[in-house]
């Protein structure tokens, strides 16, 4: 099953237009436009410092864009804080996982969105039960939920971060290097999960260095270089080498010379 970026698919879930972010005089993101449709995975690739993470942070509310517009379901959205993003059902799995190491998995899952009892106190039992439910789906082997996150394995920590996004019914999921710290088995697990979420109609931005992984999962691939969008291509229309050429020399398929392509190897 493949999906293409035809205009006939209607209103995009996310439509980022002409986003600019500058740090001092450096243009980290320089006029980038991206879109994402329901049930679609858009791979966002590029070298270190290409501006992928910064771009995506403007969508997750971790960083404010200097200029540009974001439309969610066709309506103009104002996203200035992570809270704003969550209102639009945008969930982010950060590369760093963004877990508080000293507290347990349920507390991390519900961080900032705690379940409260009638008396406005923390309802830890309810949060633990909800965590067990989600974890039963994501990582059934992970049972010791009530230990501080710092004593968990890489895979378990990853599942906590993913559980946090999944539990709150994300419609737009941002995954920044979701498998960078994982072994092969755990990576396969995350890939399965992405495919499942896709079938549920969730739109996913997948940021990755791993071009093979992106080719396995993404429907479209957007390439960034030095803060600019090189281009967005349908995965089925390009080869890995052509995407590599976009990443490294910033040339769209068909425009790179044979010599240039040769140098990539």
């Amino acid at each position, binding site marked *: 099953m493949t999906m293409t970026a035809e205009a006939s698919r209607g209103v995009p879930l996310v439509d980022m237009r002409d986003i600019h972010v500058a740090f001092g005089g450096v243009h980290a993101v320089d006029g980038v436009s991206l879109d994402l449709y329901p049930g679609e995975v858009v791979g966002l690739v590029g070298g270190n410092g290409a501006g992928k993470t910064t771009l995506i942070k403007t969508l997750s509310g971790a960083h404010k864009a200097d200029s540009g517009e974001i439309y969610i379901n066709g309506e103009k959205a104002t996203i200035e804080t992570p809270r704003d993003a969550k209102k639009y059902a945008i969930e982010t799995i950060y590369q760093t*996982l963004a877990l508080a190491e000293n507290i347990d998995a349920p507390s991390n899952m519900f961080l900032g969105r705690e379940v409260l009892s009638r008396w406005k106190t923390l309802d830890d039992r309810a949060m633990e039960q909800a965590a067990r439910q989600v974890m039963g789906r994501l990582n059934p082997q992970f049972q010791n939920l009530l230990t501080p996150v710092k004593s968990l394995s890489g895979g378990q920590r990853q599942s906590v971060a993913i559980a946090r996004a999944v539990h709150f019914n994300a419609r737009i999921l941002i995954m920044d290097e979701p498998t960078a710290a994982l072994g092969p088995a755990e990576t396969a697990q995350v890939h399965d999960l992405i495919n499942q979420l896709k079938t549920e109609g969730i739109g996913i931005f997948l940021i990755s260095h791993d071009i093979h992984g992106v080719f396995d999962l993404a429907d479209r691939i957007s390439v960034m270089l030095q803060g600019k969008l090189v281009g967005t291509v349908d995965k089925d229309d390009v080869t890995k080498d052509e995407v590599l050429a976009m990443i490294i020399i910033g040339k769209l398929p068909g425009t790179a010379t044979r010599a240039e392509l040769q140098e990539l190897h």
Partner: protein
Amino acid sequence: MSVTASPPVPPESSQAPSRRLRLGPSLRAAEIDMRLLGMLGALGLIWVGFHFWSGGTFLTPRNLWNLSVQTATVAIMATGMVLIIVSRNIDLSVGSVLGAVGMAMAMLQREILPDWIGYNHWAMWIIALAAGLLLGALIGGLHGFIIAYVGVPSFIVTLGGYLVWRGVAWWQASGQTIAPMDTTFQLLGGGSRGNIGGLWSWVVGGVACLAIVFMAVNGRRQRTKFGLRLRPLGMDVGLAALSCGVVLGAVGYLNLYYLPERVAAERGGGDIPFGLANPVLILIGVTLVMTFIATRLRFGRYVFAIGGNPEAAELGGIKTRWVIMKTFILMGILVAIAAAVQTARLNAAVSGLGQSAELYVIAAAVIGGTSFAGGVGTVSGAVLGALVMQSLQSGMVLVGVEAPIQDVAAGVVLVFAVALDTIFKRRPK
């Protein structure tokens, strides 16, 4: 559809729990905090050591009663310092703020309010205390605002506060001693009238025992309900009995401290126990409330999350600045409570009130297990830490160690305690 049915499970994640089960069932079943045991051991050592060194005067009801009152001010502030340090901040100004707020409450009672309502008005102590609490909250809020919203490091802000508020304490009365306090206000500080007597002390002890039993029973019921492993019944019963014994034993022993004959004569004579002093009751109340705030409220959870990973807290949508500011407001209120107790106990305010209290408060929190790396600490640990520090200090006073040498000992113990803890933690579990 189950996502994880197909791929093989990485060995580490599947074996970790079972390995743990095999390794130390007895240790885990006990679930006794090693740090708590260590602290109680150190406390016992200090008490017994000073008892012999002082020729048998440390462990008398009279001395322990005094110790309980002296511990109160430092312990009250330490409960707030825990949250400050847990969120990766520090407050060096608590001693000076105590001085400034204590002096303000004294000035209200001696210089300002009498012009309006006269001396010894029934509402005097309420107005003075309320004004003090408000002032403490405002000072804490000011510190917190500069730290959280302006972004000046807490070390710098409260170092400045250390100087400023000490100066303000002096300036209010131009260095004079302000005394005495309102007679009702004095009750906040303990003394021969500021206590609840023998009978009510037994009542407090009894209530504490009931609470201990209730918590033990409730804990077992919850664990059964949620299918968690239970401790052996005997151990739970033993622990509850031991805790009750300690509480009732402490009450009984403190009740052996009787009012002086002259005071007792006014109340019909005979051996009339002091009973628990008001500062101790205030401390108990503060400890319960602060433990509740730290562990049961969203605010407390946020403080710990910020200490564990400030970025994660921010990305989780927590208003981290406001949380930090609130910790300092809370600290200011606790300092004001301590200031009320202290001025009431001394029945006077001097410009040096609370001098170097910040060091004892920070030391108490740290000895009580609060980590400077952030994210770790308990309110009850800090109270116990305060008791350790105060035991050390009053023990040295008792045996006649000179003041500078007391500081040497206190400093050495502080570093030694944290060093031990660091080494202990570094060892593989």
